[in-house]
């Protein structure tokens, strides 16, 4: 790959112990540790998917193609100049908002929700773009403020965050809305949101549970919550997924039933086994040991992400890297917790493992940004 002169950045002299390799990675804007962890997760994910799909080669091939595209996107994004990203963030954000409004007006529906815009051949899901745009925009906003944020800053940032969240909620896509809001709120938190606001809002949420339950929530939403508390009550309906996934996980035991030998998953008892519930397949076949292995990889990835954020040299980069990393954690936590019956069932895929097209590309885009941040920080110092 021949790089144009604009993208070449010089190494600081203090980094000698990384040697020439470090220099090469630096020039390619690739973080080798992050890449290694990602590759490990990707390979592991493909194996689990192969099992979860009932050993469907075509499905694994499809996933492989998505990953290939996503890795390319990641490498390209990693070359971006973060200051440029920061400057362009309002356009990205405003463009995303317009698209979300278009979805509501002219969107394409599926399963009772309007989430796509049809662009002839391709269907485009603007909420995916917002997963990037919201943290970037919020981080960019705070990078212009004196931190920790003042009350007006918080109000403005909340508007920035809640506007797309509300639009996505209207699609309706509660899960994505919550996750996008979370990615923004993480930025606010990292920016130094005063503790009194944090505890104050937690207290408010606590107080508002009762009126929410009685006045706001719809019956099907209450049903979801009740199902979570007692899945057995609705064995064949909403509780089925949870019962079957818990059975899959629990029956896996410490060592698991062996790869491709999970009865729950291979005999179709587990619904959505290759998408949202894929970890149950892995837990059944590879046991607690497999779960620990996967969680370790995720933890390593998060640790690396936070390290990148920690060592980056400007506010925008720090906040964005922190948000990307912690949002990734939220995805992991919500999915793994949901499959184990700890959290309500919201459609959140397991990052880098579940079958997915655009979601993988989005995820790898954010890792591209992380790599750009990781390799850019030295220039600032210089």
């Amino acid at each position, binding site marked *: 790959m021949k790089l144009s002169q604009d993208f070449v950045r010089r190494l600081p002299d203090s980094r000698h112990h990384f040697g020439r390799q470090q220099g090469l990675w630096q020039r390619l804007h690739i973080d080798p540790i992050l890449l290694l962890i990602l590759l490990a997760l990707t390979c592991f994910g493909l194996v689990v998917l192969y099992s979860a799909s009932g050993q469907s080669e075509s499905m694994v091939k499809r996933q492989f193609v998505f990953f290939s595209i996503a890795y390319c996107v990641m490498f390209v994004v990693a070359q971006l100049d973060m200051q440029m990203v920061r400057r362009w963030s309002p356009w990205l954000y405003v463009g995303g908002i317009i698209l979300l409004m278009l979805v509501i007006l002219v969107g394409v529906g599926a399963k009772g929700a309007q989430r796509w815009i049809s662009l002839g051949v391709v269907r485009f899901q603007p909420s995916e773009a917002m997963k990037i745009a919201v943290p970037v925009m919020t981080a960019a906003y705070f990078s212009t403020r*004196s*931190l920790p944020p003042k009350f007006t800053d918080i109000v403005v940032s909340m508007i920035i965050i809640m506007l797309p969240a509300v639009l996505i909620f209207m699609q309706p896509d509660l899960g994505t809305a919550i996750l996008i809001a979370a990615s923004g709120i993480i930025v606010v938190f*990292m920016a130094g949101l005063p503790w009194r606001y944090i505890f104050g809002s937690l207290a408010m949420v606590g107080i508002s549970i009762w009126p929410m339950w009685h006045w706001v929530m719809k019956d099907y939403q209450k049903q979801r919550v009740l199902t979570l508390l007692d899945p057995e009550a609705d064995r064949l309906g909403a509780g089925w997924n949870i019962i079957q996934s818990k*059975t*899959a996980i*629990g*029956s896996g035991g410490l060592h698991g039933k062996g790869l491709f030998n999970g009865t*729950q998953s291979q005999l179709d008892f587990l619904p959505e086994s290759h998408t949202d519930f894929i970890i149950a397949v892995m837990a059944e076949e590879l046991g607690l040991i497999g779960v620990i292995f996967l969680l370790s990889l995720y933890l390593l990835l998060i640790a690396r992400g936070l390290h990148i954020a920690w060592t980056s040299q400007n*506010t925008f980069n720090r906040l964005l890297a*922190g948000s990307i990393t912690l949002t990734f954690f939220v995805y992991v936590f919500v999915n793994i917790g949901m499959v184990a019956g700890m959290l309500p069932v919201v459609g959140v895929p397991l990052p880098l493992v579940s079958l997915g097209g655009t979601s993988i590309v989005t995820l790898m885009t954010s890792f591209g940004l992380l790599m750009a941040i990781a390799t850019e920080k030295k220039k600032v110092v210089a």
Partner: protein
Amino acid sequence: MMWAGEQLHQFKDHHREARVFAVRAAISFLMVVALFGVLLARYYRLQVTDHEVYATRSDRNRIHVRPIPPNRGLIYDAQGQLLADNRPTFTLSVVSERTSNLEQTLDHLANLIEVSERDRENFLKRLRQRRRPFEAVPLRYRLTEEEISRIAVNEFELEGVEIEAQLTRAYPKGALFAHTVGYVGRINERELSSFDQATYERYSGTHSIGKIGLERYYESELLGQVGSENIETNAHGRVLRTLEFTDPQPGKDLYLFLDSRLQQVAVDQLAGRRGSVVAIDVKTGGVLAMVSAPAYDPNLFVNGISYKDYRALNESRDLPLFNRSIQGQYPPGSTIKPMLGLGGLEAGVVDFDTHIFDPGYYQLENDERLYRDWKKGGHGRRVDLRQAIVESCDTFFYDMAFRMGVDSMHPFGDKFGLGERTRLDIPSERPGLWPSREWKERVRGLHWFPGDSLNISIGQGDVLTTPLQLAVMTATIASRGTHLRPRLVKQLGDQPTEREVVDQIEVQPQYWDYVHSAMEGVVHSARGTAHRISRGIGYKMAGKSGTAQVVGIAQDEEYDADKLDERQWDHALFIGFAPVEDPQIAVAIIVENGEHGSSAAGPIAREVFDTYFAMQAEDNAKP
């Protein structure tokens, strides 16, 4: 684009921001680690602490025990002809647990094949009964080839629908053996609730049960032992493989004494009439033929008879469902006379020289009532026991009964099995009635009158017998006192059934000879009431005709068939055995409203015997 306040950037406290961020990042990382710990704890609990619970649940999920019904034992006649067979039929069943919308699936099925409202009702009724989860509940039986293919084509949109091949009972001889072989039917709710746990297990996978006849009596032998199969299924209930298999044990086959040829002759002879023929092997007590006419097709009942068919059978005046051979209780009429004659001889109230004058009636002292003889004007002077049997003289028996008394007559008749069930190996037998002094006082609250003895001596009054009892009585006379329990089954599986002597009746040998010879006279002497059936006969046959009143005739009235409805005509009876020298077969025949035993019932006996001896000759001729 310039931010409002971009200029502030210059005044930012970078160190403070970095410090705040560092603290927040550290807190975040600690939270991440803590929350990973929570996840791990959750998975540890599921996978280690509660592993057993979920492992069991997972097995239960996929492994189903499916019962394999045993093949029901077959039933053969004496010649090895199949009377009850198992034939494969195709049944459409639905597993409600595997349908997402049962009603919709049923509607869909009804569009493809014929599903009547009744099929549907029965299905829903069965669905509500006690059953295992994931057990297929039958909806339609006896699918045609076309129906099967129509279902197969649409299989993908018929959730939980199964087509099962199963063996269904079939009765190839149709109505011929309806009353003896009986039939199986679907297990009903009452039967199901009467099962204990072990029985319930035995019937899992079996849908039918013996309802009447041999099918009912030998139910537990015919049924066999259920087998089982542990099958792995997926969430959609598709069977993927068999993990364990226990063979079912087929039920035992029944081999009967009944012979289709003899049975057919009896049925042909009774064609268009109501009545019964029972033929017994004198040596073994085996029932060679047992016919109750009219009969019905037992195949109608196997998968549940239609309401229309059942009503037709149930409401028919001819009572086709009624097994006359064991349930019909008729006055035996004069057929009882040979037995009573023996009793009189043995009791010493008559001997070979005893004779009476018969003016055509008998009168008791201090009683104005005339006990009439069937023959107007009587049988004349010097009527002895032999003549009284040959010509069926009532007056002789009136006199003998008067002298003998009920206390002597009753125990003697008892020994021949009158008034008691024969314990034939099919259910629902009725006992008949052989009156005694004690019985009359207990049931009627009246004293025994000498006139009552007179009435029973000619087989009238309160005495009632079933055709089977008469046949047993006849066989007992034929065998000179060996009262055998009658039985239909010769061999159960590979185990022959035992000959069972109920009573060995001790009567002087010359008395047997005397009565046998008198009964031979009924058929073979010119004055015998049944002498017409002896024409062209190639063996010696003993018999006794009888006529039983259906309606009481007042003292001064004459019996006049023309004035009465056909259904009030006298019943015709006949008992007999052959050959006289070495009796092998005994019969009892009743033709309802057949009027005269000698003319209506006697010829049937002759046909049955002719066939029997022809059969023997035929069988002996075989290498």
